[in-house]
């Protein structure tokens, strides 16, 4: 079996080497259908906007749908690597699928750029994760924006109300650690289910601890319930939310109870309002204009931005890799990986990427902005 495999590998190699100027093949795995489709569709649309030539070479994008399913994502990755002989994989949309694809790309010695959020996709950079990069901000970056804002506004005691699931647990862990480092005390830790019809008990407990601010870690419209209950029970202090609520349905449900809510978001969401001096303004606007020219005004989302940034990383890395090897060879895959790790000051829609041997995300504090809800719309806070 092993002998057969190596024969085939040699045959494939000699075939690849015989083509002098092969195209660069980029395999893309997105969740265009299934539960994560609302994330995957703008990503797929964005891939279609990426440049067709990089460094003078033609680039082919081969897009496969994993239907938000981990097994299909792994199957797609294998197919792209063995049948389509891609040089790099972009994907997948969701964290479980991206985590499962790590083994596949590490085995095939091909670089991968994930568009999913979990920090475990690139941390720690070990033998397998050498090959893996990602573009979305880590939760700890979003959490640090909240903690910094709290520290700057004299918040010493915070009550936490979060989802009783992985989302809430993850945020609690991040938030507690970062708040502790800044001397902010978490005085109440309450949880609720997205399907709950009443959170009066949790809210009363949170208020009884006499906090300076309340932090609600939930995503989508269910996160509005604790906020509405807090206001109804007469809490007037500041309320922080996560970037999980940054959609217009949240504004519709929460109404006037959400005035003044503070939350961090990626810069792409507020691209138009960013001051011209902001380092991400130009690169974020470039994406916003490219996307809205095709899909109409107001159609842009931060999820598509993650796909755009994968393109930004490729445009920075591919010319470097081309100096060392020909596309379609294992040497090119390795050279591309090295080049991705050496990307410096690549400005994308979500921030400025500075990769290193220990940091395969490469984003810093410029990758998020604090916003508030004012007069029923998202408003940028002075940075």
């Amino acid at each position: 079996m092993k002998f057969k495999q190596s024969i085939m590998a040699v045959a494939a190699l000699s075939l690849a080497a015989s083509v002098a100027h092969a195209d660069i093949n980029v395999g893309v795995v997105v969740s265009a259908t299934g539960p994560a489709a609302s994330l995957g569709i703008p990503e797929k649309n964005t891939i279609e906007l990426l440049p067709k030539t990089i460094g003078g070479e033609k680039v082919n994008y081969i897009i496969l749908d994993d239907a938000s399913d981990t097994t299909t994502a792994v199957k797609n990755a294998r197919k792209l690597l063995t049948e389509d002989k891609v040089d790099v994989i972009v994907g997948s949309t969701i964290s479980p699928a991206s985590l499962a694809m790590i083994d596949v790309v590490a085995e095939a010695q091909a670089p991968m750029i994930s568009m999913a959020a979990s920090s475990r996709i690139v941390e720690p950079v070990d033998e397998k994760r050498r090959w893996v990069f990602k573009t979305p901000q880590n939760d700890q970056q979003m959490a640090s924006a909240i903690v910094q804002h709290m520290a700057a506004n004299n918040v010493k005691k915070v009550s936490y109300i979060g989802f009783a699931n992985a989302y809430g647990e993850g945020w609690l862990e991040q938030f507690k650690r970062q708040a502790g480092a800044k001397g902010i005390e978490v005085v109440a830790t309450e949880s609720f289910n997205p399907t709950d019809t009443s959170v009066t008990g949790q809210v009363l407990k949170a208020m009884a601890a006499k906090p300076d601010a309340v932090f609600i870690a939930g995503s989508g419209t269910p996160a509005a319930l604790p906020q509405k209950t807090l206001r109804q029970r007469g809490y007037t202090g500041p309320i922080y939310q996560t970037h999980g609520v940054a959609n217009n349905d949240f504004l519709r449900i929460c109404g006037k109870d959400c005035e003044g809510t503070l939350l961090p978001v990626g810069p792409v969401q507020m691209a138009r309002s960013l001051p011209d001096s902001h380092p991400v303004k130009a690169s974020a606007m470039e994406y916003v204009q490219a996307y809205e020219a095709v899909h109409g005004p107001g159609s842009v989302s931060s999820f598509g931005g993650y796909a755009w940034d994968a393109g930004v990383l490729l445009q920075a890395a591919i010319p470097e890799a081309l100096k060392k090897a020909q596309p379609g060879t294992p040497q090119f895959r390795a050279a591309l990986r090295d080049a991705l790790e050496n990307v410096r000051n690549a400005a994308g829609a979500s921030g400025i990427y500075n990769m290193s041997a220990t940091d395969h995300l490469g984003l810093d504090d410029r990758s998020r902005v604090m916003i508030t809800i004012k007069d029923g719309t998202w408003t940028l806070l002075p940075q």
Partner: protein
Amino acid sequence: MDFDIALILTQDGITNGAIYALLAMALVLVFAVTRVVFIQQGEFVAYGALTLAMIQAGNVPATVWMLVVMGVVLTVIRTVQGLRDGQVLAGLSAGLWNVAYPVAVAVLLLLLPLAELPIVVQVVLTLAVVVPIGSMMYQLAYQPIASAPVLILLIVSVAVHIAMVGLGLLFFGAEGFRTKPFSDAFFEMGPVLVSGQTIWVILTSIVLIVALYQFFDRTIYGKALRATAINRIGARLMGISPNLAGKLTFLLAAFIGALSGILIAPITTVYYDTGFLIALKGFVAAIIGGLASYPLAAIGAIVVGILEAFSSFWASAYKEVIVFTLIIPVLLWRSLKSHHVEEEE
């Protein structure tokens, strides 16, 4: 915890408990008369709330098309039955009502300026759309297998529940809705601020419970339902149609479910899948009542509501565990108390 917090929690628990009480009573009613475990009760809550939200947003709620489709299917079935029995006209006329009514409601919804109507009219329209779905559901899903064992009826209920959740996602989307409150008033009762909506919920529940009591005690249809619940075959021998009893029961249960949804929609965000958990708590209350006793089920519902409120204060992470664990001692007590009789229905 001080006295004020205890009062607020009790008030919150009673508000939720009042809704659970209504649902528990509908569950007891449906089980007693038709032996159907009414799992889809929660979907009627969601459909009621979301249909009202659609109407308030000025859209024609998609539930009305579900009503039309069910009516057409029912008419076809009735006509085919009529053809088979040689009574075409009887079958057709019985069926036509099932089309005429939904179409009339649909036309009404298309013509009226929905968003501008007073809230009472919006609520009546919502009930006009959602409640008949209950009766049609009985005729389509349960009437042909009315004498099947409880297990088969339960399986059908699970299927209907899953279908309704799926359709709910299709009709209303994944994001939730809130409706306008019936009253913006707030009343101070000692240290507690009571919202007008809370009083609406509690008053409506009490009125409905009294009305149901009167219905079962005073009217011929109510007595017929009670007779069917006590002894199905005996009631049939007395000339009470089991089909009519089934239809009427489902109509009532759908009414209670939809009304519960309308009552809670201004207090909380309702999603297409919110109903199940609410109905499950009503179910716990109904189990406390042994799926037979209305007063016990109502008391159980208040207990569930208050327990939920207090456990969300003391141990929010274990709230659901505490509420649903309540069912174990109740079942234990019931199984020790009752003499177990093997019976095949």
